[in-house]
Protein backbone atom coordinates (compact mmCIF):
# COMPACT_ATOMS: atom_id res chain seq x y z
CA UNK A 1 0.00 0.00 0.00
CA UNK A 2 1.10 3.55 -0.66
CA UNK A 3 2.43 5.43 2.38
CA UNK A 4 0.34 8.63 2.59
CA UNK A 5 3.13 10.30 4.56
CA UNK A 6 5.83 9.60 1.96
CA UNK A 7 6.89 13.05 0.65
CA UNK A 8 8.73 11.48 -2.30
CA UNK A 9 5.71 9.59 -3.60
CA UNK A 10 4.70 10.56 -7.12
CA UNK A 11 1.10 11.71 -7.60
CA UNK A 12 -0.99 8.73 -8.71
CA UNK A 13 -2.56 9.43 -12.08
CA UNK A 14 -5.88 7.88 -13.05
CA UNK A 15 -4.12 6.04 -15.85
CA UNK A 16 -1.67 4.52 -13.37
CA UNK A 17 -4.53 3.65 -11.05
CA UNK A 18 -6.35 1.83 -13.87
CA UNK A 19 -3.22 -0.05 -14.86
CA UNK A 20 -2.43 -1.03 -11.27
CA UNK A 21 -5.27 -3.58 -11.37
CA UNK A 22 -3.42 -5.46 -14.12
CA UNK A 23 -0.79 -7.33 -12.10
CA UNK A 24 0.23 -4.09 -10.39
CA UNK A 25 -0.10 -2.70 -6.88
CA UNK A 26 -3.85 -3.27 -6.86
CA UNK A 27 -3.71 -6.53 -8.84
CA UNK A 28 -7.24 -7.86 -8.93
CA UNK A 29 -8.46 -10.21 -11.61
CA UNK A 30 -12.04 -9.07 -11.00
CA UNK A 31 -11.14 -5.57 -12.14
CA UNK A 32 -8.12 -5.95 -14.39
CA UNK A 33 -10.42 -4.99 -17.24
CA UNK A 34 -10.02 -1.38 -16.05
CA UNK A 35 -6.52 -1.45 -17.52
CA UNK A 36 -7.81 -3.15 -20.66
CA UNK A 37 -10.18 -0.33 -21.54
CA UNK A 38 -7.50 0.70 -24.00
CA UNK A 39 -9.86 2.17 -26.55
CA UNK A 40 -11.31 4.53 -23.97
CA UNK A 41 -9.79 7.80 -22.90
CA UNK A 42 -9.18 8.29 -19.21
CA UNK A 43 -12.27 10.51 -19.11
CA UNK A 44 -14.42 7.77 -20.65
CA UNK A 45 -12.93 5.14 -18.36
CA UNK A 46 -13.65 7.43 -15.42
CA UNK A 47 -17.28 7.51 -16.52
CA UNK A 48 -17.32 3.69 -16.47
CA UNK A 49 -15.92 3.61 -12.94
CA UNK A 50 -18.36 6.30 -11.79
CA UNK A 51 -21.28 4.40 -13.32
CA UNK A 52 -20.23 1.20 -11.54
CA UNK A 53 -19.86 3.00 -8.22
CA UNK A 54 -23.28 4.56 -8.75
CA UNK A 55 -24.76 1.10 -9.26
CA UNK A 56 -23.01 -0.09 -6.09
CA UNK A 57 -24.84 2.63 -4.17
CA UNK A 58 -28.16 1.67 -5.68
CA UNK A 59 -27.57 -2.01 -4.97
CA UNK A 60 -26.75 -1.26 -1.34
CA UNK A 61 -30.16 0.39 -1.03
CA UNK A 62 -32.23 -2.07 -3.02
CA UNK A 63 -30.33 -5.33 -2.62
CA UNK A 64 -30.84 -5.85 -6.35
CA UNK A 65 -27.48 -6.60 -8.01
CA UNK A 66 -28.70 -6.99 -11.57
CA UNK A 67 -27.95 -3.46 -12.79
CA UNK A 68 -24.51 -3.58 -11.15
CA UNK A 69 -23.81 -6.95 -12.71
CA UNK A 70 -24.86 -5.70 -16.13
CA UNK A 71 -22.73 -2.55 -15.89
CA UNK A 72 -19.61 -4.52 -14.96
CA UNK A 73 -20.33 -7.09 -17.66
CA UNK A 74 -20.73 -4.35 -20.29
CA UNK A 75 -17.41 -2.86 -19.23
CA UNK A 76 -15.71 -6.26 -19.54
CA UNK A 77 -17.11 -6.73 -23.03
CA UNK A 78 -15.84 -3.28 -24.04
CA UNK A 79 -12.45 -3.87 -22.45
CA UNK A 80 -11.68 -7.02 -24.42
CA UNK A 81 -13.32 -6.11 -27.72
CA UNK A 82 -10.03 -5.35 -29.47
CA UNK A 83 -7.84 -8.02 -27.93
CA UNK A 84 -5.74 -9.84 -30.50
CA UNK A 85 -5.77 -13.62 -30.42
CA UNK A 86 -4.40 -16.23 -32.81
CA UNK A 87 -6.70 -17.23 -35.61
CA UNK A 88 -7.05 -20.77 -36.89
CA UNK A 89 -7.60 -21.73 -40.51
CA UNK A 90 -9.93 -24.67 -40.26
CA UNK A 91 -13.33 -25.16 -38.68
CA UNK A 92 -13.68 -28.88 -37.89
CA UNK A 93 -17.12 -30.30 -37.31
CA UNK A 94 -18.44 -33.76 -36.56
CA UNK A 95 -22.22 -34.27 -36.38
CA UNK A 96 -23.38 -35.94 -33.19
CA UNK A 97 -24.97 -39.34 -33.80
CA UNK A 98 -27.01 -41.39 -31.40
CA UNK A 99 -28.52 -40.73 -28.00
CA UNK A 100 -26.91 -38.47 -25.40
CA UNK A 101 -27.94 -40.90 -22.71
CA UNK A 102 -25.75 -43.55 -24.29
CA UNK A 103 -22.81 -41.25 -24.94
CA UNK A 104 -19.67 -40.79 -22.89
CA UNK A 105 -19.40 -37.05 -22.40
CA UNK A 106 -16.22 -35.50 -21.01
CA UNK A 107 -15.91 -32.14 -19.25
CA UNK A 108 -12.71 -30.16 -19.94
CA UNK A 109 -12.26 -26.77 -18.30
CA UNK A 110 -9.55 -24.14 -18.65
CA UNK A 111 -10.46 -22.82 -15.21
CA UNK A 112 -7.54 -24.26 -13.24
CA UNK A 113 -9.74 -26.59 -11.18
CA UNK A 114 -8.15 -29.55 -9.40
CA UNK A 115 -8.78 -31.97 -6.56
CA UNK A 116 -7.66 -30.62 -3.19
CA UNK A 117 -5.65 -33.83 -2.68
CA UNK A 118 -4.03 -33.67 -6.11
CA UNK A 119 -2.52 -30.21 -6.61
CA UNK A 120 -0.79 -30.17 -10.04
CA UNK A 121 1.89 -27.88 -8.53
CA UNK A 122 2.53 -30.08 -5.53
CA UNK A 123 1.34 -29.98 -1.95
CA UNK A 124 3.01 -26.59 -1.41
CA UNK A 125 1.68 -25.04 -4.61
CA UNK A 126 1.02 -21.29 -4.64
CA UNK A 127 -2.22 -19.80 -3.43
CA UNK A 128 -4.48 -17.96 -5.84
CA UNK A 129 -3.08 -14.64 -4.61
CA UNK A 130 0.51 -15.88 -4.95
CA UNK A 131 -0.17 -17.14 -8.46
CA UNK A 132 -0.69 -13.58 -9.75
CA UNK A 133 2.99 -12.77 -9.23
CA UNK A 134 3.87 -15.93 -11.19
CA UNK A 135 1.86 -15.04 -14.30
CA UNK A 136 4.95 -14.92 -16.55
CA UNK A 137 6.04 -18.37 -15.38
CA UNK A 138 2.56 -19.72 -16.02
CA UNK A 139 2.52 -18.25 -19.54
CA UNK A 140 5.79 -20.04 -20.33
CA UNK A 141 4.79 -23.34 -18.76
CA UNK A 142 3.60 -26.62 -20.23
CA UNK A 143 -0.14 -27.10 -19.59
CA UNK A 144 -0.99 -30.17 -17.57
CA UNK A 145 -4.28 -31.94 -17.11
CA UNK A 146 -5.79 -32.48 -13.68
CA UNK A 147 -7.82 -35.69 -13.66
CA UNK A 148 -11.14 -35.44 -11.83
CA UNK A 149 -13.23 -38.62 -11.51
CA UNK A 150 -16.96 -38.31 -12.17
CA UNK A 151 -17.90 -38.90 -8.55
CA UNK A 152 -15.77 -36.00 -7.27
CA UNK A 153 -17.89 -33.61 -5.23
CA UNK A 154 -17.54 -29.84 -5.39
CA UNK A 155 -16.22 -29.79 -1.83
CA UNK A 156 -13.29 -31.94 -2.99
CA UNK A 157 -12.32 -29.36 -5.60
CA UNK A 158 -10.47 -26.07 -5.57
CA UNK A 159 -8.93 -23.83 -8.22
CA UNK A 160 -5.93 -21.66 -9.02
CA UNK A 161 -5.56 -19.45 -12.09
CA UNK A 162 -3.48 -16.28 -12.51
CA UNK A 163 -5.66 -15.02 -15.37
CA UNK A 164 -8.98 -14.63 -13.60
CA UNK A 165 -10.12 -14.49 -9.98
CA UNK A 166 -10.37 -18.18 -9.16
CA UNK A 167 -11.68 -17.46 -5.67
CA UNK A 168 -15.09 -17.60 -7.36
CA UNK A 169 -14.39 -21.15 -8.53
CA UNK A 170 -13.06 -21.98 -5.07
CA UNK A 171 -16.43 -20.94 -3.66
CA UNK A 172 -18.37 -22.76 -6.35
CA UNK A 173 -16.48 -24.91 -8.89
CA UNK A 174 -19.70 -25.09 -10.92
CA UNK A 175 -19.02 -21.60 -12.23
CA UNK A 176 -16.35 -23.04 -14.54
CA UNK A 177 -16.52 -26.79 -13.93
CA UNK A 178 -20.17 -27.92 -13.92
CA UNK A 179 -19.55 -31.55 -13.04
CA UNK A 180 -22.27 -31.55 -10.38
CA UNK A 181 -24.85 -30.40 -12.95
CA UNK A 182 -23.70 -33.06 -15.39
CA UNK A 183 -23.95 -35.68 -12.66
CA UNK A 184 -27.54 -34.55 -11.96
CA UNK A 185 -28.39 -34.86 -15.65
CA UNK A 186 -26.77 -38.30 -15.79
CA UNK A 187 -28.80 -39.44 -12.78
CA UNK A 188 -31.92 -38.37 -14.67
CA UNK A 189 -30.87 -40.43 -17.68
CA UNK A 190 -30.34 -37.36 -19.85
CA UNK A 191 -26.68 -37.87 -20.63
CA UNK A 192 -23.92 -40.43 -20.19
CA UNK A 193 -20.58 -39.41 -18.73
CA UNK A 194 -16.99 -40.49 -19.09
CA UNK A 195 -15.30 -41.93 -16.02
CA UNK A 196 -12.83 -39.07 -15.69
CA UNK A 197 -12.98 -35.35 -16.48
CA UNK A 198 -10.20 -32.81 -16.72
CA UNK A 199 -9.17 -29.23 -16.09
CA UNK A 200 -6.06 -27.19 -16.76
CA UNK A 201 -4.92 -23.64 -16.23
CA UNK A 202 -5.71 -21.67 -19.37
CA UNK A 203 -3.06 -19.10 -18.49
CA UNK A 204 -0.31 -21.21 -20.02
CA UNK A 205 1.93 -21.28 -23.07
CA UNK A 206 -0.54 -21.18 -25.95
CA UNK A 207 2.17 -22.37 -28.31
CA UNK A 208 2.94 -25.39 -26.17
CA UNK A 209 -0.76 -26.04 -25.70
CA UNK A 210 -1.27 -26.17 -29.44
CA UNK A 211 1.96 -27.83 -30.55
CA UNK A 212 2.97 -30.08 -27.66
CA UNK A 213 -0.09 -31.32 -25.84
CA UNK A 214 -3.40 -30.72 -27.64
CA UNK A 215 -3.05 -33.67 -29.99
CA UNK A 216 -1.92 -35.95 -27.18
CA UNK A 217 -4.91 -34.90 -25.09
CA UNK A 218 -7.27 -35.62 -27.99
CA UNK A 219 -5.72 -39.06 -28.47
CA UNK A 220 -6.04 -39.73 -24.75
CA UNK A 221 -9.74 -38.86 -24.83
CA UNK A 222 -10.26 -41.09 -27.86
CA UNK A 223 -8.53 -43.92 -26.00
CA UNK A 224 -10.94 -43.30 -23.12
CA UNK A 225 -13.79 -43.83 -25.62
CA UNK A 226 -15.16 -40.32 -25.21
CA UNK A 227 -17.93 -39.34 -27.63
CA UNK A 228 -18.00 -35.61 -26.98
CA UNK A 229 -16.36 -32.87 -24.92
CA UNK A 230 -17.87 -29.93 -23.08
CA UNK A 231 -15.15 -27.28 -23.10
CA UNK A 232 -15.41 -24.40 -20.65
CA UNK A 233 -13.34 -21.28 -21.24
CA UNK A 234 -12.69 -18.62 -18.58
Amino acid at each position, binding site marked *: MTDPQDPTAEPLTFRAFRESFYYGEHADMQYKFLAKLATLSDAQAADVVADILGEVGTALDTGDLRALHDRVQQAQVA*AYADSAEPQVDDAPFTPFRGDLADARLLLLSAGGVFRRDDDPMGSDGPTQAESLSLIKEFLRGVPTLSAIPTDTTDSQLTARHPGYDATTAQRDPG*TVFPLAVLRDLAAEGRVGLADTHYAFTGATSQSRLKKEVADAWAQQFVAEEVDGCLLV*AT
Partner: protein
Amino acid sequence: MSIFVEAFTHIAGRLRVPRVVITPHLMGRTVGPANDRDRQRTVVEAALSLLVDADKPESVERL
Protein backbone atom coordinates in the same frame (compact mmCIF):
# COMPACT_ATOMS: atom_id res chain seq x y z
CA MET B 1 -19.23 -27.91 -27.60
CA SER B 2 -17.78 -24.92 -25.84
CA ILE B 3 -18.99 -22.25 -23.44
CA PHE B 4 -17.54 -18.72 -23.56
CA VAL B 5 -18.53 -15.51 -21.80
CA GLU B 6 -19.68 -12.66 -24.03
CA ALA B 7 -16.45 -10.71 -23.45
CA PHE B 8 -14.62 -13.42 -25.37
CA THR B 9 -17.14 -13.98 -28.15
CA HIS B 10 -14.61 -12.78 -30.73
CA ILE B 11 -12.04 -15.26 -29.45
CA ALA B 12 -14.45 -18.14 -29.90
CA GLY B 13 -14.99 -16.86 -33.43
CA ARG B 14 -11.29 -16.67 -34.21
CA LEU B 15 -10.74 -20.15 -32.82
CA ARG B 16 -13.62 -21.34 -35.03
CA VAL B 17 -14.88 -23.80 -32.45
CA PRO B 18 -17.54 -26.17 -33.83
CA ARG B 19 -20.29 -25.24 -31.37
CA VAL B 20 -20.28 -22.42 -28.85
CA VAL B 21 -22.72 -21.18 -26.24
CA ILE B 22 -22.16 -17.50 -25.38
CA THR B 23 -23.22 -16.49 -21.89
CA PRO B 24 -23.83 -12.94 -20.57
CA HIS B 25 -21.95 -13.69 -17.38
CA LEU B 26 -19.01 -12.02 -15.71
CA MET B 27 -15.53 -13.31 -16.47
CA GLY B 28 -14.63 -16.27 -14.30
CA ARG B 29 -18.27 -17.32 -14.08
CA THR B 30 -18.66 -18.77 -17.54
CA VAL B 31 -21.35 -21.31 -16.65
CA GLY B 32 -23.22 -19.08 -14.23
CA PRO B 33 -22.99 -17.11 -11.00
CA ALA B 34 -21.66 -18.79 -7.87
CA ASN B 35 -24.25 -20.94 -6.11
CA ASP B 36 -26.82 -20.45 -8.88
CA ARG B 37 -27.22 -24.11 -9.79
CA ASP B 38 -30.39 -23.49 -11.80
CA ARG B 39 -28.61 -21.06 -14.10
CA GLN B 40 -25.62 -23.37 -14.44
CA ARG B 41 -27.95 -26.18 -15.41
CA THR B 42 -29.67 -24.01 -18.02
CA VAL B 43 -26.30 -23.25 -19.61
CA VAL B 44 -25.19 -26.89 -19.64
CA GLU B 45 -28.51 -27.97 -21.12
CA ALA B 46 -28.12 -25.37 -23.86
CA ALA B 47 -24.67 -26.74 -24.65
CA LEU B 48 -25.97 -30.30 -24.80
CA SER B 49 -28.81 -29.25 -27.09
CA LEU B 50 -26.32 -27.55 -29.37
CA LEU B 51 -24.19 -30.69 -29.43
CA VAL B 52 -27.13 -32.67 -30.75
CA ASP B 53 -28.86 -30.08 -32.94
CA ALA B 54 -26.01 -28.24 -34.66
CA ASP B 55 -25.74 -29.18 -38.33
CA LYS B 56 -22.82 -27.01 -39.37
CA PRO B 57 -19.48 -25.80 -38.00
CA GLU B 58 -19.24 -22.58 -36.00
CA SER B 59 -22.77 -22.91 -34.67
CA VAL B 60 -23.46 -20.23 -32.04
CA GLU B 61 -26.13 -20.11 -29.33
CA ARG B 62 -26.47 -16.90 -27.31
CA LEU B 63 -28.16 -17.09 -23.94
